[in-house]
């Protein structure tokens, strides 16, 4: 069982020329697998949203997620970020109904150019073949949700 990172490329044009924002993918590690997907997000130039999944172990049978992160990268702006929402979407093992976890806004945080605001969750198991997704919105994104960024739980062994 393993998670397969989806890949979405976002390309933006800047004064300095054409630059690729992101390419997502899966990273292999000794004891854990890390998967992530970047998607473009509302807000400033180069704002992105990322889902990062870290599995508990490469040898774990079930699709166990040790830690999931919902991460908003602010891109080319700085200032206070308020009204920070993060939302997770997932399917529990042996279930077919989507579940959702929403963290609400409270207070503000200082942001630098390219800095991040993130929420994390020790999620546990998810259903085989399901998508684990996150999205975010905040005052720097114009209070608009990002697209869902997802990784898919699939069989590999």
């Amino acid at each position, binding site marked *: 069982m393993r998670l397969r990172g989806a*890949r979405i*490329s976002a390309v933006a044009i*800047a*004064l*300095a*020329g054409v*630059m*690729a924002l992101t*390419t997502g*993918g899966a*990273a292999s*590690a*000794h*004891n*854990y697998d*890390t998967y*992530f997907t970047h998607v473009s997000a509302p807000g400033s*130039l*180069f704002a992105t949203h990322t889902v*990062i999944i*870290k599995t508990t172990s490469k040898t774990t049978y079930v699709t166990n997620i*040790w*830690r999931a992160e919902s991460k908003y990268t602010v891109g*080319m*702006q*700085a*200032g*206070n970020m*308020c*009204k920070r*929402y993060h*939302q997770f*979407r997932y399917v*529990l093992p042996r*279930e077919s*109904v*989507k*579940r*959702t*976890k*929403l*963290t*609400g*806004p*409270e*207070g*503000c*945080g*200082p*942001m*630098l*150019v*390219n*800095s*991040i605001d993130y*929420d994390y969750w020790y999620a546990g198991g998810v259903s085989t073949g399901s998508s684990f997704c996150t999205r975010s919105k905040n*005052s720097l994104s114009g209070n608009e949700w990002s697209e869902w960024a997802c990784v898919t739980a699939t069989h590999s062994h």
Partner: protein
Amino acid sequence: MIVWTARERLAQAFGLAVFAVALAGCQPAEPLAAPSLEESAGALLLRELSDVEREVLADRFVSASEHEKSEVVVRQCLEGYELEVSIEPDGRISVETSDFDEAEVERLFNECWVEVDAIREVWRLQNQPSPEQIAHAERGFVDCVADLGYVNTGASFGEASAAYSQNVLQVREEWDTSTKAENGTPNPLDACFLAYTEAVGVLPLPGLAEALAALNVS
């Protein structure tokens, strides 16, 4: 998969660095300027108060017990919709459910949240970091970035911010695809930033102090 040559990646990094330096240099991490009292986020928050908010904010002060009460109120409201409520490590409230779609969960959350959001935000205002705490946090960030070699010791916060902004994307990408990322630790440069934000803490809504001072709930 897009494969970039070293030359292309260098051009990308250079272009990004130009933007990062330009923007970090002219936009330090300070609260966004509130255009006016009436339009500030704080003023908007206090424009319409729930009954419990009016009661608590009559003296323009939120006590610890009143803050706890706000949590009870929002929890009861959310659980009334059979949403599972939990409190995040930073005190924020989250909900979990399988009974509604994402938009409906957000609508229900906000319906309950507006009952107490003014209390919660005023509590944040009362517990905001002091100028000394912020200065200490900024000093820590500069020292952290200097220790990594991106600026000289004694650099300003603006210089360290610019160095962070122009280098962090590349550092983040390399870290996220390396074995070092497997235990969940952030890359060293983001660790500097996260330590800074943790030291600063949660900041209040812009304009909230002024709006609270002008609040009349009679």
